[in-house]
């Protein structure tokens, strides 16, 4: 089946999968968003424990999606994997550090003899939720702003700046996406709490938080969209693969591929509708609308950066070293083999959905959290 597809079709197929994974990952980062809200949405220790336990039952999904995202990039676009991870060394290490401290925090926080004390683990969760999200936003933003690398004739990467990725922190425009992501994941985190925790005081505070955060989110998001659509874009000639700059290339892509623009708009509207329903109609189920909206929006942005002869990882040092889905992908055979493995994805999503449904049929309550018969975080 996949063998008959051209290499370019497989590259597009895998970029769609990467974009989907990217979208799912941003959605699942409601866990990170929720982690930044632990103090804000609770007034008692029991309430905080309810919030932690609610998130703790999902933290593994975030890790897994990140691992899969990394593995899929490694296999499908190995030149990007080598370039970005090897080059922007400190940026990625910062992200990884924030995830290490998250992994242990849920399980260790309340356990006696935990060495560092509960507050430290809560701080770890906060750092992962805030700094981790901002650093990830900056890393993704380099898809648009570029990075300082060259590729030699062995296809080995050379980074041009000694700060090894930290220079991305000095680019103010990268913060537009970073903060938009931070406020978005806080909003979705709030919607997750609304859906998962049956406790009115938390729900009241959560709705107020969502109302505030949508106000913070919009300027950053609109600023990011404006910047991306109006900036010069990197494009390549499909025949020669020569890279050049084109005015407003990302906007052109949305115009030339209207289904992407539609996907993007539908996604944004779904998030806004979810916010409206959560705040003004006191609905508790909006995580699903917001989740689908987030996945569609992020997917549309990533597809925009990968399709229509666009460079998805521009080099600000050497234009011709820039990476597109064409010059950075795996071979035809590997992409084909991987495509067969990808057929398992719907089954994986189905059992995750079923497990989520089975576990969340009964909402978290104060009684459950204080019961000694239950496993707690």
């Amino acid at each position, binding site marked *: 089946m996949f063998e008959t597809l051209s290499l370019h079709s497989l590259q597009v197929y895998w970029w769609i999968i990467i974009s989907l994974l990217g979208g799912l990952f941003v959605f699942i980062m409601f866990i990170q968003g929720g982690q930044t809200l632990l103090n804000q949405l609770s007034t008692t220790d029991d309430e905080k424990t309810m919030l932690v336990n609610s998130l703790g*039952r999902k933290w593994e999904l975030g890790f897994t999606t990140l691992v899969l995202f990394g*593995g899929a990039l490694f296999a499908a676009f190995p030149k990007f994997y*080598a370039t970005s991870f090897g080059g922007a060394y400190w940026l990625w290490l910062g992200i990884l550090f924030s*995830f290490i401290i998250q992994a242990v925090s849920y399980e260790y926080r309340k356990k006696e003899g935990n060495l560092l004390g509960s507050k430290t683990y809560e701080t770890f969760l906060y750092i992962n939720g805030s700094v981790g999200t901002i650093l990830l936003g900056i890393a993704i933003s380099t898809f648009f702003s570029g990075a300082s690398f060259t590729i030699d004739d062995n296809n080995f*990467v050379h980074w041009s700046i000694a700060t090894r990725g930290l220079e991305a922190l000095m680019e103010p425009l990268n913060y537009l996406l970073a903060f938009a992501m931070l406020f978005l994941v806080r909003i979705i985190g709030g919607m997750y709490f609304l859906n998962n925790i049956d406790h009115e005081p938390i729900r009241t505070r959560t709705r107020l938080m969502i109302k505030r955060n949508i106000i913070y989110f919009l300027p950053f998001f609109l600023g990011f969209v404006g910047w991306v659509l109006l900036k010069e874009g990197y494009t390549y000639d499909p025949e020669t693969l020569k890279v050049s700059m084109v005015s407003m290339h990302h906007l052109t892509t949305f115009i030339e591929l209207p289904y992407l623009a539609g996907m993007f708009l539908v996604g944004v509207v779904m998030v806004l509708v979810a916010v409206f329903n959560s705040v003004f109609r006191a609905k508790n189920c909006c995580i699903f609308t917001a989740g689908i909206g987030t996945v569609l929006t992020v997917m549309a942005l990533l597809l925009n950066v990968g399709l229509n002869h666009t460079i998805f990882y521009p080099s600000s040092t050497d234009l011709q070293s820039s990476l597109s889905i064409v010059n950075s992908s795996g071979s035809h055979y590997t992409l084909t083999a*991987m495509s067969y493995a990808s057929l398992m994805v719907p089954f994986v999503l189905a059992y995750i959905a079923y497990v989520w449904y089975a576990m969340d049929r009964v909402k978290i309550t104060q009684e459950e959290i204080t019961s000694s018969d239950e496993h707690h975080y």
Partner: protein
Amino acid sequence: MQTELIDWSRAQFALTALYHFLFVPLTLGLSFIVAIMETIYVKTGDAKWKTITKFWMTLFAINFAIGVATGLIMEFEFGTNWANYSWFVGDIFGAPLAVEGILAFFMESAFFAVMFFGWNKVSKSFHLLSTWLVAVGSNLSAFWILVANGWMQYPVGMEFNPDTVRNEMANFWDVALSPVAIAKFLHTIGSGYVIGALFVIGISAWMILKKRDVLEAKRSMVVGASFGLLVSIFLILSGDESAHQVAQQQPVKLAAMEGHYKGLKRAGIIAVGILNPDKKIGDDIHPFYGDIEIPYALSFLGYHDIDAFVPGLDDLVLGNEEYGIESAASKIEKGKIAVKALQAYKEAKQSDDQTAMSESRKLLKEYMPYFGYGYLEKPTDIVPPIALTFYSFHIMVALGTWFIILFLIVLYLTMANDITRFRKILWLTLWSIPLGYIAAEAGWIVAEVGRQPWAIQDLMPVGIAATHIDAGNVQVSFWLFALLFTVLLIAEIKIMLRQIAYGIKGGH
């Protein structure tokens, strides 16, 4: 590339892997033991078994989190610290990692929540299924990462593409079902099961010694010791197959494992020996100060034939015409031809000289099996650190033998309902927990140190694989990781000890 950078990059990866390997083997073993215990609970309906299951499950969870965290770091360290490697083999190596994510890791993580929080939310049978699926997912996950590692030890199923300057996959099944990968997987998960079993019987022994939850501890001991005995026997078989594969594909590693310098027919295994550090390749100094040998055993282990010739390090470095073994110097020469042919190909391509391209491509194909040798400086570069490989191998084998004896004794005494009287055995059982870890880490050292200098056997030495980065960056990140992992390890041990002190019935 600077030696300092390479050494720090290796040290950092070794650090992460060593820590990772402290947590993951226990997870692999304990997940099955917990699943067995829960199965007994579901079958018998005896609430005591539920209490026992929950206790071990809690210890599993404490350990699991940090195993996941170090695993994530390892995946991304391929990119951060070994960027050149990532490109050179990403087309092959990335695929098992991605499949691991799709097929295994999601299964593990999705059902993990049910296993811990679903006792009163889903049916008994669905909960039991989830516990088994966590175990299966963990082990599937290990399979795919060991397939990737197995490929580095024995690269198959690929072709080198001079246009992209990388190896490209030609046959997925050759990679996934490579005999080295299968042997490696079976032996590694076997060692994890043994650690899990040692952990269960060791902690149970401590409880019996302290007269706490004695009935529950004895029940745990029966499950742990039975499981441990079975997997120990399996470990001998998988170890034999592993050594057989090493002899076929990595004879230098086998020679280093045994401190075997001069090739011999009917070669024996050194049961006990102290290496002479003055021994050099090609000299006549005896490699050991003293040794006890088991005759014929190395020939049998390596080739399943007691008469087989087992090449020594002298033969592999200097060559042995009689047995058709090529010298490392000759391989280095051929490797240099391959490297030059690649360069010539690139130049010809730039000037669009089709004839020259075709000639250099042909030459490259012929000498590609030696490609990595082209980056070595001298023949002895192919020899890994012998002392570390030798002692690690012997420690692993000696401890493996001890574990079988221990499981037999513990199982017999527990079944005879007599274990409480044998306090020395109980103490020995407790102190065997760290021995399990030592054995597993030693095995990992044999596998990874023993294959040096290769990142990918014969194709890429570690010196070429590392990211082009200033060594200071890697040095700083090494110490940051070392600090963080150590703090988390101490925290984990303290939490584990506290949880164990509560006892099986003490809550969770």
